[in-house]
Each structure stands twice: as structure tokens, then as C-alpha cells.
């Protein structure tokens, strides 16, 4: 099994290189990480076809100089399939929603999910008893044109392109949903787009704006997924973007929740989120798009500003310096302890083959601690380290302070306004479903308990201050 030399730390490709040199007298520079090879011979894996970059007058580096198109594609698809099967991301009874931004990673995710579905369909048609159903696939695009500086026409055009791309990926047919973050507001309000604009405008911090949009995007995807009966949400989050997220979380004081965001499976959401492309870098995905003619949409945002932009340029700089840096960062962060929700919920469906269930049990992380009740930030849904527990029960606490204190420290700093007055207005601008998440769920119980012990209580206020 050939390893992906970009990520592999051992020098196995170098050994293959040595074997290659015996049969083909080509000049090679033989450096350790193989980044400078000028291999003009054949693909390292199949030893038959020419490598990808050989046609373009040589000068290709990295994977393009080592592998032919077929082996490269097979390698990448292999990584995708391994991630999916070992984490039971997609089972026959699932209805999978692919989040599509038009970028390189989500295009590849869509393509691979489609190919997987096609194979399942073929197997289904070929099998005699038709016991294994084929999983369903849908595609969702989040339209942020109301808050981003993209022209209405530009968006319309892009959406049409995406529609046609999705329709070409049939059979099986896939439904295409366009959802706006503004849809998070309760249905019926005609001024949803305005409210959204005001909300984003109320955030002072540039990075906070960016991040709030990102969180709302996820909530919108969750909404469309649960309303349309999807059971899994596939994101095209790849190694490169995860590396940036690792640094971003560290820089924003979110070290505690970092391990929740970077695992293959994230089941704290109503519709579990899975990352099948977690082990692929943006570079690999771009190469694949290029050789397979998968066109990314022009709509993808330019460089993020603020701290997120600083971090992407930093990671890019490190990556140029050492091509395996992104993988190292993700690997390091992967050694942090995940949470109990970072695995696919146990499947109890009888339709799912026993093999899948057994495989899931094998790969599921053993819970290191008993399932503790984590509290989650109402805005970004990250587990909050306990110092911000809201004061329950005391009716005198302002509900807005309660909301603020239930948020994680990063959201408190960069998203929420700093003073009380603006806080009230800000809460009114947030979608109701977000604000509702912060209400302590124990209120009802607490009142009942209080009734029972009322005669022994000495002061008016509760124990928690």
C-alpha cells in the first residue's frame, strides 16, 4: 500500500526512488523529503504511466512529479473511503447532506460521495435480494450574499452553475438546497435579511464578524439538514483548513474546545457532522480538481481578514518552508483528548449490516471519562470550560447577563458587545433559536425543588451567587 509521500514521515518513497534509479537513469537531486525531484520516468506506484507533471515540460514538484493521474486519484479516494468506513460515517440507511461552498474541497467531497453512492447503486441493482439500500445524498449551499460584498448577479450565476453541476451528478438524483443564514430567523419575518445585516454590523471586531458568520453558516446548514430529514452532514474540511483552525483556536483562547472541532465525527449537533477529507491537503485537492476538470466556483471568498487572514498567511508560509507542516499540526492536535460526542452515535438500526456495526464499535473511541454534561456556548456550540456557569434560579439576574455568561470566553470577547446597553439590543438581533439555547434547562425542576424545601430556606437568594 503506497503511502502518501506528502504526509509520510518515513523515507519509504526514497527507497522506491533508489529502486527507480537502478532501472531508469534519470538525474535526481535525492533530497530527504523529495520535494525537489525531477523524475522524468514513470509513476512511482504503478510504474507504468507517466507522472502528472511530465506533460507540462517538467518542473513539477511533489506529488505531481511522483504519481500518474490514476494513482493519484486512487490514493486520494482511498483516503476518503478509509475515513468513511472506519468511522461509519455513511451507512446504507443514511441520508447525507453535502455542504457545498463551491470551493475545491467541497467539490471533491461532492464528487467522492457521488462516486460512492454510484457504486452502492450498482451493487444494489446487481444483488439478488436487494437487502442493502443505497444512502441518499443532498447538496446544500449557504447564500451569504446579503452580508458579503458579492453582486446579486454573481451569486445567481454561481447558483445556476452549481445547480447544473449537481444535476449532472445523477443518477442517483440529488436535491440541491440554497439556504441563507437569514433563514435562521423565525419564518414569516420579512425583514430577516435586514436583521442579519444589523446583527453583523453590531459586531465591532473584524475577526468576530468573520467567526459569527461562520457559526451562523453552520446553524443554517443544521436547520436545512434537520428540516429535510438528513441524517449526516458532510463538510469538505481538509487538513490545511484544520491546521489553520488549530492555530486560530489556540490564539483565541479556545484550547479546551479545540479537540471537539477537529475529529472525524462531531455528534454534538442535531445532525452529526463528518469530515471525510480530513486527511487530504488543499494542494492535493486542487491537483485532483485540475486533472479531473472539476471546476470550483468563482464565488469562494477571497482572503479572510483580521486574525483569520493572518493565520492563513502564517500557515502558508510554514507550508512553503516545509510541505508536511500542515499534517504535523493536525497530527499534534489529533493527540488531544476528544470529547464523548466525537463518535458516531451507536447504530441501532436493523437495516444496517452487522459488519458496519461491528466496525463502528471497533473504531469508536472508548470514553475516557463518564459522559459528563458539558455546557455549550449558544453561539458557537463549543464546550465551555466550567468557569462561566450561569447563576440559576435567581430571578433578579438580567437574562442578558445570563446569556452572556453562558457563552464561551472567545465569543464573549469578539462577538458580544462589551456594555450592558448594547447587549440587550444585540440579543434582540440574534436569531431566537440561538438565544433560547442559553436558557438553563433546570428552571422548572428548580422551582419544584424549591417548593419542597421552602420552609427550611432562610434567605431569599439561592445558594449560587
Amino acid at each position, binding site marked *: 500500500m503506497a503511502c502518501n509521500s506528502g504526509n509520510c514521515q518515513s523515507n519509504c518513497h526514497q527507497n522506491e526512488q533508489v529502486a527507480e534509479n537502478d532501472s531508469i537513469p534519470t538525474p535526481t537531486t535525492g533530497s530527504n523529503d523529495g520535494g525537489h525531484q525531477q523524475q522524468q520516468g514513470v509513476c512511482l506506484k504503478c510504474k507504468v504511466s507517466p507522472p502528472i507533471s511530465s506533460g507540462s515540460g517538467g518542473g513539477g514538484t511533489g506529488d505531481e512529479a511522483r504519481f500518474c493521474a490514476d494513482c493519484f486519484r486512487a490514493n486520494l479516494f482511498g483516503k476518503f473511503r478509509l475515513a468513511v468506513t472506519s468511522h461509519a460515517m455513511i451507512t446504507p440507511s443514511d441520508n447525507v447532506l453535502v455542504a457545498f461552498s463551491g470551493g475545491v474541497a467541497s467539490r471533491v467531497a461532492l464528487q467522492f460521495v457521488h462516486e460512492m453512492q454510484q457504486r452502492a447503486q450498482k451493487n444494489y441493482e446487481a444483488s439478488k435480494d436487494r437487502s442493502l439500500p443505497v444512502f441518499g445524498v443532498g447538496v446544500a449551499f449557504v447564500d451569504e450574499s446579503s452580508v458579503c460584498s458579492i453582486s446579486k448577479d454573481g451569486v445567481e450565476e454561481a447558483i445556476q452553475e452549481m445547480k447544473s453541476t449537481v444535476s449532472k451528478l445523477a443518477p442517483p438524483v440529488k436535491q440541491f438546497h440554497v439556504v441563507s443564514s437569514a433563514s435562521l430567523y423565525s419564518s414569516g419575518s420579512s425583514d430577516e435579511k435586514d436583521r442579519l445585516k444589523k446583527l453583523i454590523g453590531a459586531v465591532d471586531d473584524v475577526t468576530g464578524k468573520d467567526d459569527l458568520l461562520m457559526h451562523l453558516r453552520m446553524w443554517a446548514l443544521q436547520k436545512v439538514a434537520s428540516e429535510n430529514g438528513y441524517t449526516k452532514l458532510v463538510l469538505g474540511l481538509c487538513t490545511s483548513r484544520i491546521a489553520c483552525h488549530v492555530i486560530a483556536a489556540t490564539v483565541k483562547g479556545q484550547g479546551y474546545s479545540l479537540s471537539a472541532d477537529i475529529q472525524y465525527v462531531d455528534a454534538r449537533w442535531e445532525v452529526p457532522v463528518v469530515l471525510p477529507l480530513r486527511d487530504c491537503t488543499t494542494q492535493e485537492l486542487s491537483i485532483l480538481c485540475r486533472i479531473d476538470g472539476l471546476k470550483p466556483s468563482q464565488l469562494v471568498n477571497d482572503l479572510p481578514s483580521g486574525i483569520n487572514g493572518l493565520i492563513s498567511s502564517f500557515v502558508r508560509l510554514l507550508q512553503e518552508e516545509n510541505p508536511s507542516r500542515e499534517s504535523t499540526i493536525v497530527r499534534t492536535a489529533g493527540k*488531544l*483528548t476528544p470529547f464523548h460526542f466525537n463518535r458516531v452515535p451507536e447504530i441501532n438500526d436493523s437495516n444496517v449490516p452487522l459488519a458496519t456495526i461491528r466496525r463502528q464499535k471497533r473504531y469508536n473511541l472508548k470514553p475516557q471519562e463518564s459522559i459528563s454534561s458539558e455546557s455549550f456556548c449558544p453561539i458557537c456550540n463549543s464546550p465551555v*470550560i466550567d468557569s462561566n456557569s450561569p447563576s440559576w434560579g435567581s430571578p433578579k439576574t438580567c437574562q442578558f447577563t445570563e446569556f452572556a455568561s453562558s457563552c464561551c470566553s472567545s465569543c464573549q470577547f469578539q462577538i458580544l458587545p462589551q456594555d450592558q446597553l448594547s447587549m440587550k439590543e444585540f440579543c434582540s438581533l440574534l436569531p431566537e433559536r440561538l438565544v433560547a439555547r442559553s436558557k438553563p434547562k433546570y428552571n422548572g425542576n428548580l422551582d419544584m425543588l424549591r417548593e419542597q424545601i421552602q420552609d427550611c430556606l432562610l434567605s431569599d437568594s439561592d445558594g449560587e451567587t
Partner: protein
Amino acid sequence: MEEGNTIAKRAGSRLCCLCNERKPALKRPKTLEQICRDCFYNVFEEEIHQVIVGNHLFKAGERVAIGASGGKDSTVLAYVMSELNRRHNYGLDLFLLSVDEGITGYRDDSLETVKRNEVQYGLPLKIVSYKDLYGWTMDEIVKVIGLKNNCTFCGVFRRQALDRGAAYLKVDKLVTGHNADDIAETVLLNILRGDVARLSRCTSITTGEDGPIPRCKPFKYTYEKEIVMYAYFKKLDYFSTECIYSPNAYRGFAREFIKDLERMRPRAIVDIIKSGENFRISTSTKMPEQGTCERCGYISSQKWCKACVLLEGLNRGLPKLGIGRSRFLENSNDNRKEAKRNDGDRSIESKQCGSLDF
């Protein structure tokens, strides 16, 4: 892109934020508050005092050595420690401990500064030199091994040198001037290099409690910029040049990034440290087992301590001994762990110096 907006706006009233009496003389790097000099001294010293007291760094009657290089961090540390010791009656016996690596044009100059500090602050000084301890100066080492991996030698030797100096002075603790920027850089570096074990230890304010001499970092939450500001306003005497062998250090990447970050969001430095403290790292992660070096008796997780391994290499004319991933050594098993740490070093530095033969 400043984010202390509300605070900056409030301070437009042209009086110090804290005392509301005097005119502001500076903007505090940590919080961007506009305050006067006296308030700055107060809040600077008070925050350090709170860190010392809140983390129970010292006990009355302890003998404490201050690692003094002559640079701004250690000079300010010596000044503030003696000041707080007096003001709050910590009851500590303070000493200055300095290491002479034998780098001409750098260390010999900074040592002069430390000798002046000895007089200025009235703290007894002890200098330990690589020449005396190991028989090699850094200049000689660099002549043999070149400009790659010299930081490894210096760091390993310095650690032992400080411990030996501390033992000579019979002190109970060692304090170093590592500031918030240093610790934030280290957290980032450990993430970039894949060192989870170090990641879990690097944010501790006290380390080595189970070793020969515990060390603490009272400046853990103090910004480098504020230390410079303090030294500037108090006109403290310090030596301000970088080590002449340091330009290729990988830490430079992290440092650049943090400087840019600080400009955008000053509190990010403390946020990095907070993230580092909160990382969920399993305590069952395999930590190195502690033993003693067979050759010199110093604390070590392998048969020989790293300093002995490196020295052996130098003395036998094998400068690469103990560096990088070694395949042909008797102790190859032991060195693989250290080697992994240096591996990143090697691939980066080999690129920067352009030489592929390692």
C-alpha cells in the same frame, strides 16, 4: 484594526485611566489603557506580585537564584524581585546566577552588565562558565559543528549549568525571566513541531519540582513590550543584542507571527497561554521515565544525559552525535526520542542553509 476600542474612546478624556489625576504618558501594551508612569509602575509590579502570591511561588526564608543574562528580562526581574521582596516582605535571600557560554562579542559584553547589576541591586553574583564545566566554549563548539544545531548544544548545556550553579549557591529555587511572549511562542512551537508531551508542561509556572532545583517564571503573564517599557522608563541598565548565532532559529517564525498578532489583538498572547493551559492532554500520555545519568549523575531519562552525549560527540570529534535521527550509534534507541525533536530542526535548517548533505 484595534480592538480596545471602547477603552481607547473612554481615555480620550486626557487623564490617566487609573488615577484620573495625572496626564497619561503611555498606552499600556496589554490593555491599551492610557495611563501615567506611576500608575504603570504600580500595575506592573502589582500584577507580578499577584502572580507570585496567587501561585504560591515562594516561601519565607527561601534562597532564590535569579537567572541573569544581562538582558532586559533578567535585569527587570532582578529589579522587581528585590523591590517586591522588600515591599511585601517575602523574606527571600536573592542571588544572581549567570552563565558564561563563551560567546565573544555577545556574552562577554552582557556579563559586564550583570556585574554592574550586582553592584546596583546589591545581590551576590555567581558566574558559571561552559569552559569550566565542560571544557568547551560556544565559539569553539560552533567552529566544530557549524551554525546548525548550535542552539541545541547551548540550550542543553545551559540547563545543566544553571542547575550546577544553583547547587553551588545552595539555593532552593531558580527564577527565570521567561515572559508571556516566550511562553506563547513555545506553545505555538510545540504545536508546530508535534511535541504533545512538552505542550502539556510548557505553560506551567513552576517546573522541575521533582528534579534538582524547581524553576519558576514570575513573568508568565507579563508582556515583553511592558518589560521593555518598564526598563525604559526606570532607566534600568541592560544589554540589548540578540545572540550572534541565533538568526536561523525556527522560533523566529513564531515570534514574527506573535508580533503581528499583538498588533491586531493584544490579549491574544495571554489567550494562547490560556489555551495551552486548557488543552485536553491525557495524563496517561507516555512521559519519559526519570533516572540519573551514568556518567555524571545529573537527572536524565536515558542512560546518559543529553549533555554527556553531546560532550562525548565533541570530544570524540563526532559532532553529529546526539543530533538528528541517528541510525548507527550504540545508543541509537535512546537517541531516537531526542532525534524526533530535532528532526524538524534538521529539515528546516538544511533548507535554509542550502546544504543537502546532513
